[in-house]
């Protein structure tokens, strides 16, 4: 079974992302499935950034540490990742940086410098790259030195371009060397390069020359790779590689998005940018004939702020378009007043909330699950809304479509909750993974021809009024308490009627959303250990289940998909009979545990928590579960990642 993990580290702006993507594409072309994720500092350029990649025959569930290969394109990367190589794995670095001292690396975080210096000191070593390399070697890593400066000189000579220009292919020199050592056939790397830089012939040529120089050098210095990686099960198959940002964008467009607004904020902006790229789509003849138009034009507008973003989509949704905005924690805070309006005025709008590590600006480019309660309790004054969390890329695609369905069926805001890890992690997906025929498009009680005496807020038994688009009938959409027509009123009786109407709607939501979309039970249903989690921890937890099973520990896993209205009864059934209930979540308050206490009779025994802003790894979950079983600890904080 193939299971390869890599880390490509270097300065931000040094082509780390492209190197990662070339690696991803090489592996997909070779027929494997991938999971790749980028970790980077919140800075413009220069600070350490790395791409973490895992390759398997099936879609990897989690990133893995330690890895089979670390490519360190600069001294800082050696210092950051020399302990991430497994015994027998390779550390690729530039011996030219051998004597670089920890203190000489300006962008490196001071606390890390301090930790490294005391580590080297405790071993009687100098705080230099060579010491780190030596420690990696002692731990069993194979060291591959690449004289990057000389290789660049060769590249410059062969292409006739100045060293300053060819230095942009430094990442390719390193990557090709590492992939060669790992047995990846070089033709796949070249194909991936052609894909990555499609349309830029000179760049392709320069990078392919870099591949050749790298391979020649490595072959001469270290010989042929021990084994050549055989083709994987998907070779010859067309795949999509997409980030979480991408698949949500795809889901929205496929799901009929008409208007999307945003104000730039990490990590949501990439979703908007991707939608912009596909905001104008031509449709072919027969389909166009059936639809009555041949161009899909999505209005995507970068607004002046988040307040404008959400209010504009409220207007667009009231006018009948499927409308959405995308944001992250700080931006969502600004949207709260309008969320409340959307509840009172019963406007179907989808807010995609990409959680990142707070509070406040916190760590803007790192992941976390800290906005769970924020999303559920957003909006003032008794303002229930639907909150749905996706566990992975495939779910995120379908949820993006379903969120619109629910918003329109129940005429209420839907918050689609995701996080930075999903946003920027990239996976390979087959055609059947993103199959729109698996979902419907339902618009609820949308009237094409409203009656003359139209009442926007007509009181119906299920709490859901027939909805007409602005422009198709006279009405008032309003955030003030109102009568059936929308006229503002403070009549005590009408107030109760309307409050009960909106409350009934939420009972109907609980009835109509199918159980499998509220929560999913994975693993051994009768196991005595029950894990409970939500969001992007799904796949790491699932892999942890497999790891535990291999060691004879059986566990079940209740993945909560719908966070509001909270499926309390269902979750109770899922953990029923378990002797130990363990919550897994990436926040410090135990927000999911709070919800369980509020909505169920479950008393969580322990929690596994990760708050350092890095993705959750499956091995962390597995070992934390074992630790809890041994010690009964109430909270295990896991902390891997650089």
């Amino acid at each position, binding site marked *: 079974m193939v299971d390869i993990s890599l880390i490509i580290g270097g300065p931000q702006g040094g082509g780390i992302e492209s190197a990662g993507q070339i690696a991803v594409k090489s592996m997909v*072309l070779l027929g494997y499935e991938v999971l790749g994720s980028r970790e980077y500092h919140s800075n413009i350029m220069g600070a350490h950034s790395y791409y973490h990649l895992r390759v398997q025959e099936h879609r990897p569930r989690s990133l893995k540490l330690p890895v089979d290969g670390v490519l360190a394109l600069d001294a800082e990367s050696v210092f950051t990742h020399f302990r991430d190589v497994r015994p027998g794995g390779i550390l690729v670095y530039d011996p030219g940086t051998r004597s670089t001292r920890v203190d000489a690396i300006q962008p490196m975080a001071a606390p890390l410098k301090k930790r490294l210096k005391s580590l080297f000191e405790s071993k009687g070593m100098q705080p230099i790259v060579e010491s780190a390399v030596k420690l990696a070697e002692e731990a069993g890593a194979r060291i591959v030195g690449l004289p990057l400066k000389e290789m660049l000189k060769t590249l410059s000579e062969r292409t006739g371009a100045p060293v300053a220009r060819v230095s942009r292919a430094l990442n390719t020199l390193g990557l090709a060397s590492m992939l060669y050592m790992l047995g990846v056939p070089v033709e796949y790397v070249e194909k991936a390069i052609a*894909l990555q830089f499609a349309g830029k012939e000179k760049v392709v040529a320069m990078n392919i020359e870099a591949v050749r120089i790298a391979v020649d050098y490595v072959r001469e210095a270290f010989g042929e790779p021990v084994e050549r990686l055989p083709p994987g099960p998907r*070779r010859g198959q*067309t795949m*999509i*590689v997409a980030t979480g940002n*991408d698949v949500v964008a*795809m889901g929205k*467009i*496929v799901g*009929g998005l*008409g208007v999307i607004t945003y104000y730039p904020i990490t990590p949501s902006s990439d979703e908007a940018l991707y939608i912009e790229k*596909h905001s*104008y789509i031509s449709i072919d003849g027969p*389909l166009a004939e059936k639809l*009555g*138009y*041949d*161009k*899909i034009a999505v*209005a995507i*507008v970068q*607004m*002046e*702020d988040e*307040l*404008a973003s959400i*209010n*504009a989509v*409220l*207007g*667009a949704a*009231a*006018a*009948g*378009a*499927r*409308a959405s905005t995308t944001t992250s924690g700080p931006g969502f805070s600004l949207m709260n*007043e*309008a969320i409340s309006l959307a509840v009172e005025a019963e406007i179907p709008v989808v807010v995609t909330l990409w959680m990142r590590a707070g509070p406040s600006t916190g760590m803007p480019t790192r992941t976390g699950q800290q906005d769970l309660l924020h999303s559920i309790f957003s909006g003032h004054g008794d303002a229930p809304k639907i909150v749905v969390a996706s566990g992975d890329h495939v779910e995120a695609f379908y949820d993006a479509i379903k969120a619109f369905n629910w918003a329109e069926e129940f005429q209420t805001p839907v918050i689609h909750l995701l996080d930075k890890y999903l946003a920027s992690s990239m996976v*390979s997906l087959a055609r059947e993974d*993103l*199959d*729109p*025929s698996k979902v*419907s*498009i*339902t*618009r609820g009680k949308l009237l094409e021809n409203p009656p003359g005496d139209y009442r926007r807020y007509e009181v119906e038994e299920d709490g859901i009024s027939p909805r007409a*688009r*602005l*422009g198709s009938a*006279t009405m*008032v*959409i*309003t*955030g*003030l308490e109102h009568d059936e027509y929308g*006229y*503002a009123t403070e009549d005590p009786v009408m107030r109760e009627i309307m409050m009960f109407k909106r409350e009934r709607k939420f009972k109907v939501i609980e009835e109509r959303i199918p159980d499998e979309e509220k929560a999913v039970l994975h693993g051994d249903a009768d196991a005595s250990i029950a894990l409970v989690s939500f969001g992007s921890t799904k796949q790491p937890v699932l892999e942890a289940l497999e790891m535990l099973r291999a060691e004879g520990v059986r566990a079940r896993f209740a993945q909560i998909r719908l966070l509001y209205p909270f499926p309390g009864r269902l979750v109770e059934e899922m953990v029923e009979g378990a002797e130990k209930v363990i919550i897994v979540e990436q926040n410090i308050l135990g927000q999911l545990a709070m919800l369980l206490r509020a909505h169920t009779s479950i008393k969580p025994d322990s929690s596994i928590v990760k708050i350092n802003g890095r993705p959750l790894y499956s091995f962390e979950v597995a070992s934390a579960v074992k630790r809890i079983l041994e010690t009964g600890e109430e909270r295990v904080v896991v902390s891997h990642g650089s």
Partner: protein
Amino acid sequence: MARSWLEYKTQAWVQWCPGCGDFGILNSIYRAVSELGIDPENLAVVGGIGCSGRTTYYVKGSNFHALHGRAIPVATGVKLANPSLNVIVAGGDGDLMGIGGGHFVALGRRNLNITVLLFDNAVYGLTKGQAAPTLPAWIKTKALSMPNIHDNINPVLLAFAAGYTFIARGYAYHTQQLKELIKTAVRHRGAALVDILQPCPTYNNVMTNKWYEERIYYVDQEDGYDPVIRTPEEFQKKAPTIAAKLMEFGDRIPLGILYWNQTRESFEERLEKIMPGYMSAPPATRRIELDGKPFLHPFDVFKDRLIVP
């Protein structure tokens, strides 16, 4: 075709104070939209919070009563989704110049085809008379315990700087002229502002009807001022005169059309330029499913993400 103004009157009780300038504005809106013959369904009045926001209940339309300061973004969304609607924003001075100031500026930048009616009485009426951004400095209205310490914003000059292509000023008690200004503003293709001066008989005891009547004059009747820009070159030539007129606010306050740029393309025209067909199948009304299913497949649409062997 002109219609009776009564068709636009709703059953809601109009709850403004006696003598409020809002009555004159409401009346002018009724007359303007009826003379323009706009179907009530095709008229979207978007209000903010404050006395002015109540207009959404009094004018029969397909209306949206939005949050404080957010009428313009809501109107923007309505217009993007369905460009065929006539969208009028009814907001106060606090609403549009204070809490919603950023949106006011952004609308000019976009030049979306929306008419903004600024109910300008220099105070926050609904919350009992606090100083609004259009109240001149050192005026102490009766609700204030100290004179206003802030200088006032000039809405028409701000609109000019922001890119509005139609800027006019009316007076709430001169309903005949105001009606005409609103009509022209609604017909204009692009962002239009009508700054409507109005006494607040309850809270602004300084800027009264008498105060205004002593100062206001109509530019078209008095000095042959030409606010219209028909070519880009004309803008360069006339801009200084126009700016000077827009700055005039004190002993003399000009009313009428102050600036009318007929050369700049609207946001809708730009959308149609980059996305031909936008107007004919706008997001609000186009069909998004076939037999209840999505009709696009990601592998056929998002080709830039495909890894083709």
